[in-house]
Each structure stands twice: as structure tokens, then as C-alpha cells.
């Protein structure tokens, strides 16, 4: 069923002064996959995303998207990619409508087309009352919705998401999860990183675990489970990253808070 990979990384190495963040990553991603890209803080998840987006260029190894080497800087590739960054950095003195129009136009869409599409998408996600209100007054979840819309305005084939669900309320999380599943079913490829294991477990059809700059596990949830014989992704995560001390850590913490009283 899988033919040409959409994204293909070969021996990807990225070094920052004094630190090797990515240590020879090789990965093929195929059409319609939802890749959950997980790993502890500082494992190199965001760095990988930034390389794929062309934000970082001094990497070693090869990265191809749609068979095009990224080093060739083909701007046309970007037209087929959508991105939601971590931390919701945004020119927030603008209104959602103004911001989305700008983004859409940079992707080469007609202004009137973007305006209508943005209006409709904002309405669907329940932001119809604040279409012309400055983003600076928005909550984290509302900003996140704006960013999710901005990444999809131009109907991209690949979607890169960095913690896409952060700040969203429970209902919105369900909506976005369904959106992602349907987008993947319609043939789009979704590559996303997150810390929230429950969500990754439920919506990804392939999970890639990054640890110390290397891929520590790669497969469906069931495959990972088969390897580790453990119940949840959280536990698999703990096992693969060699972390089994959560209970002790928590205990020690509470002891310090309460002033040394031992709890059993």
C-alpha cells in the first residue's frame, strides 16, 4: 500500500555547540500517516521539525520532502506544508482575520478567498465573536485555534504540529483530534510532537520515540506494546527512556514540601 515516502530522512545529524542533538536519524514517512513524535524534553523533537520546515539549515545528512532535497531550497515545497509552532508565537496585535489573511496571501491565495475561508473556519471553531478582536486578548486555547487554522488555510499535504493541543479545552481537543484523523484519512500526512501520551496513543497510527538524539522505538502503538509488554504508552515511554523512578521522585518531592515527614 505504501509507495514513495513523502518525507525521507537519512542519517540526519544536527549539532549545536557542545551538543549533538540529533545523532543519525533515518525515517521514512508515508502518505496518510499520523506520526506521533515523542521523547523527553531536549530529545530533539522540535529541532527535527525545524529542519523539516527549513528553519534550520546547517544539518548533516539528507532530508527529502516529496522527493525534493531540502538543501535545494525549493520554495514550492513550502506551499504544500502547514505548520503550527510551539508556544503560540504570533503577531498578536493583529486580529485573527488580519493575521489569517496575511498568512493566506503569503501562501499565494487570493485575498477574498482567504477572507471567506478564514471567516468560515473561525466560525466552525467557535471564534465567530472575536474575528475582529486583537489576538493579544485571547486565551492560549483561542490562539492555538487561530494557529491551527493558519496552518491549514492553503490545504497543505503535510502538516507539522508542535504540541498542537496545548491550551485547548477538553471539547476542542476532541474536535481537533477528529480533524486530524479525518485529514489523514483524506490522504494528508501529519507529523506531530507532543508530551501528552494519552493523546498520542489515541490518534497516532505510528509512534516514533526519540531518545538521546536517536530513534528508540518506531511502530504502531500495538507494536510498541508488543515489545515492552506494558499497558500504556506512558509506561512504554518510561521504560524506553530508562526512567523508572517516577514514584520515588514524587515521594521525595512531597517529603520535601511537607518538611521531611515520611509518607507511606
Amino acid at each position, binding site marked *: 500500500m505504501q509507495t514513495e515516502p513523502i518525507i525521507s530522512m537519512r542519517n540526519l545529524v544536527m549539532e549545536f555547540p557542545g551538543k549533538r542533538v540529533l545523532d543519525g536519524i533515518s525515517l521514512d514517512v508515508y502518505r496518510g500517516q499520523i506520526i506521533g513524535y515523542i521523547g523527553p524534553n531536549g530529545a530533539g523533537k522540535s529541532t527535527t521539525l525545524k529542519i523539516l520546515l527549513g528553519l534550520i539549515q546547517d544539518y548533516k545528512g539528507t532530508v527529502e520532502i516529496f522527493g525534493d532535497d531540502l538543501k535545494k531550497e525549493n520554495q514550492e515545497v513550502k506551499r504544500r506544508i502547514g505548520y503550527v509552532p510551539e508556544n503560540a508565537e*504570533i503577531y498578536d496585535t493583529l486580529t485573527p482575520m*488580519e493575521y489569517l*489573511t496575511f498568512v493566506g*496571501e*503569503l501562501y499565494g491565495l487570493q485575498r477574498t478567498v482567504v477572507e471567506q475561508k478564514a471567516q468560515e473556519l473561525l466560525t466552525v471553531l467557535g471564534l465567530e465573536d472575536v474575528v475582529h*478582536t486583537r489576538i*493579544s486578548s485571547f486565551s492560549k486555547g483561542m490562539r492555538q485555534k487561530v494557529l491551527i487554522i493558519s496552518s491549514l488555510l492553503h490545504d497543505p499535504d503535510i502538516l507539522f504540529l508542535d504540541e498542537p493541543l496545548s491550551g485547548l479545552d477538553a471539547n476542542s481537543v476532541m474536535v481537533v483530534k477528529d480533524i486530524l484523523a479525518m485529514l489523514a484519512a483524506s490522504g494528508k500526512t501529519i507529523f506531530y510532537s507532543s508530551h501528552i501520551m494519552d493523546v498520542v496513543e489515541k490518534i497516532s497510527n505510528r509512534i516514533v520515540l526519540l531518545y538521546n538524539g536517536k530513534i528508540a522505538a518506531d511502530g504502531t502503538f500495538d507494536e510498541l506494546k508488543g515489545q515492552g509488554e506494558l499497558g500504556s504508552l506512558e509506561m512504554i515511554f518510561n521504560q524506553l527512556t530508562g526512567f523508572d523512578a517516577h514514584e520515588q521522585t514524587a515521594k521525595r518531592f512531597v517529603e520535601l514540601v511537607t518538611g521531611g515527614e515520611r509518607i507511606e
Partner: protein
Amino acid sequence: MNNFRSLRILDKFKSVFQAFGIDYSAMRTIVGLKLTMDERRVPVIFSQTKLKEGNQFIKSLGLYVLYGLVTIPFLFFGDSLMLQLGLVYGIAMFMIMTSLIADFSSVLLDVRDRVLLAAAPVNDRTLNAAKLVHVCIYMTLLTIALLGIPAIVMLATKGIVFFLLFVVMLFFLLLLIIALTAMTYMIMLRVFDGERLKDMINYVQILLSVGIFVGYQVLIRSFDFVGLSVTYVFKWWHFFIPPLWFSAPFEWLIGGNSSTSLIVLTIAGIVIPIVAISVYIRKMPLFERDLQKLMSEARDGKRQRAFLMTLWERILCRSGEERACFRFSWQLMKRERDFKLKVYPSLGIGFVAPFLFLYIFLEDATLKDLAESNTYFMIYFGFLIISSLTMMLNYSGKYKGAWLYSVTPITHASVLKRGALKASLAQLFLPVYLLQALIFGVFFGWRIVPDLVIILISAIVYAVVCYSIVSKDTLPFSRPMGESIQSGTAKQFVLMLLIGGFVLVHIIMSKIPYGAAVYALVALIICWLSWKTLLPVKKKTIIH
């Protein structure tokens, strides 16, 4: 972090604070924390580069020492203590107040204090005292940098009494400055709310900076430089020039002129600051409560239409990308307060400057002389707007949003730059210039219209030259705002000299018969060429 010299000095006054019911150790901790944060205030950009050591503010004090030296000559030239010291205090007030407004409104209007510190068991009184102490520490440093050397000169040449009087009156001046600044904010907070309020504060900041500049000019004018050697004569409106309140005791006690008006001015100089500061301290809790409004969300769901800018967009921009960036730029420029705070004062100054020089000319000439002269070249002073405007186009308070540029398939960086530059000229420079040109037209008559056209074309050339120099490898609104203060002073200076070049060529061409017509044509061609070469669209110049 608790070992700042200023804090150790503060420790000496511990009992004073405690007498006011302030939790001294809590206050000290808060101020210590703020000072530590100030040391790191310069934003570190993207990468994990090493933190710059030391307090950037303290480093910038060197510049104030230089400004302070300017006041020394005023101590010696002239026979009127009133006017000489009036100037010294005027300069001090101008410098300190602009610095307070530009750099410390963020301290005065900090709402994070409320969220983070009020949750801890710290009472409001202590919190307010910490805020006041924080601002005072900086104002003291600033004042010492500015007036330290002049004060020593006074001590050495004018004696101890003069020196002490100066220091005492300076103290009252500082009280007045704090109270004046804070009360302006206080009134603003009362009257407005939410986003509108932040806008209003922004406009007041801008207005004050321009107002102080203009007031400063008026101060010098009103004394009529030659008149420094003339005995001081009181006029009723002098009561409204605060620096004179503080220089009055010199004329009275040292100059030996004990007229009633001087005594009244002196009393004003002591009583008004005390009253002002005590009102401020009493109203401070109110101030803090109103600060809450800054955090409130406003939902004004109206779409704003801008016919004029839409029209300009149609006329000036060709590609869709350029149009997008044009619109994006003017929306940002219209909204972003940091941007307005940095740019609008220079708009005001650029607007006023040409008229100021006309005014100087008029002092020993009639309107008819003026109309026949070629002083209309003074309108070139309006170009001052362009150099600071183009510089600020690189910066944004929300510069991190610039990831967008690298993710989207932008064809050429120059296209974005063109859009931003065109938007800034159409939105900010053009209205100012047209108004100036109109007023100049009234003064000088139809004959200067061709020159005004030439000057407009030159402005467009100048703008593209400036922008291409200051925006090398930088996309619009992609650098942190804080950076703008440090970079580019030397560049700015060179760019300013460049204005002189434009004036010179224009004057020479205007002496030649048909020179104006030829020059207009040449300028137009240069204009076209400069945009073509400095912001090229053909070559691939994407920056990541």
C-alpha cells in the same frame, strides 16, 4: 542578588520605611529581584548566546554624562542666575522625564507584579513602596550621571552654598517629575479601560516626548540667547514654566533680588512637588487597583475599514505578496504600541523642526523677506522622520512571530521589504510631509511647488537608501524591540549627513536656469533605479 550597592545604601533608611508600615525585608527582596531582572533586560535572541553581562541601563549612563556636560557653559555665560539655572534645570527635567517615560513606564505599569507578588503574603503598601524605590534608584543614578560633573564644577567655582542650594532644588525637581509622570498615568487609568487605555497611555507617552522637546525649544527661545546677559524680568506666564520655580531661589538668595514674584516662584518650587508627591502616595492604592484594567479583555468585534490605505495599496503595490505585506505592515504600525512610542515622537519632531528654523529666521526678518528667501529648504529637516522610521521597521515587540516568513513560500525577501517600506511611507511620512508642504506653500507661494515635488521624490530615494542600509539581512518586524536602542546610532548619524547631500545638490540645481526641471527628471530616474537596485525583485535573496 541582594548585594547591590543601592540596596546597601537603602538599608540605612530601614527604620524610615518601617515607620510607614512597610515590611522592609520583603520590599528589599522585591527590589533586589527587580534589579537583577534589569541586568538581564536585554533580550537574548533566538540562540543560546551568552547573556550579556551587566546592566545595560547603567552602561547607557555614559551618554547622559555627555549630555550633562552641555549644561556647564550655561553656568558661566550670562549675568542672570535665574535664566542660567532655569536652563540647567530645564535640560535636566527634559532628559530625566523623557527617560522616565521611555524606559520606565513598563515599571510603573507592570501588572505582573499583581499576579505574581500579590498572591504571596505581601501587603499593597510594601508592593507600592518597592515600585517607588525601584524607580527612584534609577532616577538617582540617572541624575548623578547627568548632573554629577556640573555639580562638582559648581562646588569648585561657585562655592558650597550655591552647590547645596542646587542639590536641594534638584531634589524637589525630582519629586515633581515622579509625581507628574505617575499622576498622568493615574488620570489615564481612571478615565479609560482595556485596550483603549493602553492606546491612550501610548499617545500620552508620545505627546509628552514631543511636548517636552517643543517646550525645551520654547524655553530657549523665550530667553532669547543674547538676553542671558540681561537682567531677568518677571512675566506672569513664567509661573507655568517649572524649571523657573527651581532657579528662582538662586536669583533671590544668591542674586539678591527679593521681589515678590521670585519668592512666590520659590515657594511654588518647594510646595508643589511636596503636594504632588503626597497626593501620589496617598492615591497609589487606587492606582494599583486601576492597573487591573490593563489586564481585562476587550471584545470589540468591529471590522475596521481603511479606504485611504486600501487605495494606496492598489496604487503602490504590484504583486499579491507585496500587497499582503503592505497591509500587514500598516496594521502592525497602527497597533503596535512599542513601535508608535519609538516612531511617533520623531514624527512630531520631524514635523516641528522645519518650522522652528523658519521661526528663527523670522526673528530678524519679516514675512515678506521669508517668502522671497530660499529658506523653504528647511523642509528637508522633515527627512529626520525617514531615518528613524525605516530603522524601526526591523523591530517588533512580537518579533517571534517572524517564523512565519521562513515557513511560507515567499519568492523574494525584497518584495516584503518593499511592501513594508511603501506602507510606512504612505501611512506615516506622507501625511506629515503633505501638511508641511501645504503650510510652506502658504508661506512661500506657488513658486516652490516644483521644489516640493523634487523634495518628495528625494524623500522616496532617501527612504530606500536608508532602509536598504539598516535592513541588511533583516525582514520587516523580525528583530526584538529592545535591540533597537543599542544598534545603529552611528548609522543614523551617517544617514543624517546624507540629508545634507540632498540639500546641497538641490540648492546647486536651483541656481541653474531650468535646473529644477532637469533635476526633477533626474531625481525621478534615480528614484526608479534606486528601488530597482537596492530592493531587487529579480534576484533570489531569501533569508532564513
